[in-house]
């Protein structure tokens, strides 16, 4: 029926409470930290309940975390080895988010980075002494190429970058499968991964546990970005652009240049993430080396508040979580998807907490 609703029913005089939302003008630092920590605690609580439901007694959890991460130098070494690519993934995402570009194409950019680096390795391009550097440059270039299309579409035509970057992940994945099941299949084992990189095509060992140069290099990248965002004019302008692009443009900030630099920078670091795994962990390009990094990258950037040092801290905890997930899978038969479920719980809790930072609630009675 299309009839208009009948005359309003006789007003009830029932008393009820109505929330009023008052936007906060400013937030005290203590409150900000308190709400953030509160949301993290809530997420931890939900995660413990989820794990209990999956058959991991909460009592065993603490011991399990200690054993996987801190019980021995070897355990800590594994955590730190896993931290390195996560730091790079988080930085790639944070660079884009900080410039208001929702780059959800990290996995595609990682794949292109690894493909470009593997091309250099497979075709023996350049002298052996410079091979690794060439591979890294190629990887950054690959990631930049993959993000350039969505960036151009966003800037020129206003096309939503969430969808374009995400769709390109599927394209990149099929390209990867094409190469690994076709021309780049391992000639030795006929498995769908590239041949082993030569020793000089892998990131050198640090000499402690199985750590490679990936860890200090990712740390350096984080420090460089921290300096750029916190102490240079560039970072100030990016933050100005982020909070109000129209105003920034009006006062002469080169918004276009900053956007392009941020988008391409994000893609380049995304390509380097692929390189860090291929040349730093696997020693070749496999068909699933990128799985889960898109999600982790978004989570790390988001929880780290797009701050380079925050990214490092969150990446470390994420590495602990990932290794914990692996050992729970072995000892308790917990499905591996539980790690991603816990990550999602953290994103939801922290995102919801922003509501309490943005608004103050009053309860008023209304007739």
């Amino acid at each position, binding site marked *: 029926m299309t009839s208009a609703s009948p005359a309003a029913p006789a007003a009830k005089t029932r008393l009820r409470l109505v929330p009023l939302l008052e936007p906060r003008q400013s937030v005290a630092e203590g409150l900000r930290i308190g709400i953030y920590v509160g949301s993290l605690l809530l997420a931890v609580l939900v995660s413990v309940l989820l794990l209990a439901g999956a058959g991991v007694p909460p009592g065993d959890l603490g011991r399990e975390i200690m054993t996987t991460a801190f019980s021995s130098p070897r355990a800590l070494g594994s955590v730190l080895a896993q931290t390195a690519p996560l730091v790079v993934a988080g930085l790639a995402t944070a660079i884009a988010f900080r410039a208001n570009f929702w780059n959800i194409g990290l996995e595609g950019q990682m794949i292109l980075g690894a493909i470009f680096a593997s091309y250099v390795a497979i075709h023996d391009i350049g002298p052996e002494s410079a091979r690794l550097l060439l591979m890294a440059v190629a990887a950054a270039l690959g990631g930049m190429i993959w993000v350039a299309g969505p960036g151009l579409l966003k800037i020129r035509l206003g096309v*939503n970058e969430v969808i374009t970057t995400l769709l390109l992940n*599927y394209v990149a994945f099929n390209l990867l499968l094409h190469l690994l099941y*076709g021309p780049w299949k391992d000639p030795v084992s006929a498995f769908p991964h590239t041949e082993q990189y030569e020793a000089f095509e892998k990131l050198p060992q640090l000499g402690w546990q199985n750590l490679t140069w990936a860890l200090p290099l990712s740390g350096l990248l984080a420090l460089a970005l921290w300096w750029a965002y916190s102490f240079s004019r560039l970072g100030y302008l990016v933050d100005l652009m982020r909070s109000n692009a129209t105003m920034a443009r009006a006062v002469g900030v080169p918004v276009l240049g900053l956007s392009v630099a941020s988008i391409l920078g994000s893609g380049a670091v995304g390509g380097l993430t692929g390189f860090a795994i291929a040349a730093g962990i696997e020693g070749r390009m496999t068909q699933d080396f990128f799985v889960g990094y898109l999600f982790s990258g978004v989570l790390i950037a988001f929880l780290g508040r797009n701050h380079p040092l925050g990214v490092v801290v969150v990446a470390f905890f994420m590495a602990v979580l990932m290794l914990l997930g692996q050992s729970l899978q072995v000892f308790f038969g917990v499905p591996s*998807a539980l790690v991603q*479920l816990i990550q999602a719980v953290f*994103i939801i809790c922290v*995102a919801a907490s922003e509501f309490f930072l943005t608004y103050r609630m009053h309860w008023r009675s209304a007739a």
Partner: protein
Amino acid sequence: MSDLLLNWLINIPGFAAPFAIAALGLIITERAGVLNLAAEGFMLAGALAGVGLMIHGAPPLVALGGSVLAGMAMGLIFAIMAASFRINHVIAGLALVFFAEALTSYIASAERWTNKAISGLEPVFLGQDVIVYATPVLCALTVWMLNRTRFGLTIRAVGENPGAADAAGIDVTAIRFAAILIGAALIGLAGGYLTVAVSRIWVDSVVGGRGWIAIALVIFARWHPWRALLGAILFGCIEALIPRIAAAGFDVPRYFLQMTPYLATLAVMIWAAARGRDRWSQPAALGQHHIREERG
């Protein structure tokens, strides 16, 4: 060759229907001003619920009913995030997709539903099943609701100018809540159709980005149901063609063929954006929160 053509044609509606139904759900939600990037998550929930119920012996239409409810359950979480808590719609949508990916993968592996073949929805007439025939009806109902009912007009008012709607006595948050739930029901149904009628099996990648393609389709159709149906048929043509190209003996690399829906989606988005300035059919308040106390 004519066999091939007939075989192709008969398969198009089955591929087009989930795109069309998901697009209708997206249109209803977005016409209320809620940017819905959560479609992939709603579809995953619907797809898994359909498979689970079928494995436990439910008839196909009951399983699809379960898909609707599963989509709405996810929709409820999204509505609390996007409408009540006023989280940025992009963050809320992405968080929900991640959550749904993890949850469905977790349940499927814990319950051992993965890779288990199920019997599916059977054709009723001309090789098509009942959902295919219901699709244009749903489309007509959506058009009628949005243009001819008080509720539909209220949804559109909220999507165009929530401040004015609020001043006219409309509860903006409640309308957005309702629009998200109705949309999620339809998108869940579309996801259920993917497993119950098309693939008849669950694997974690079964939805395969179709939720994102549906979002692009809605932009392409400029939030208009009939145009979304046309776009869905176009994508149905592409998807139905892919398995037939190899079967017909054409030597196109398999993985390049599998890229085509995504590339076609990108092409369609570029075309829609480049077509010009008449972006008027995008709801004016899409993605914007409404805080009564923030007015003026």
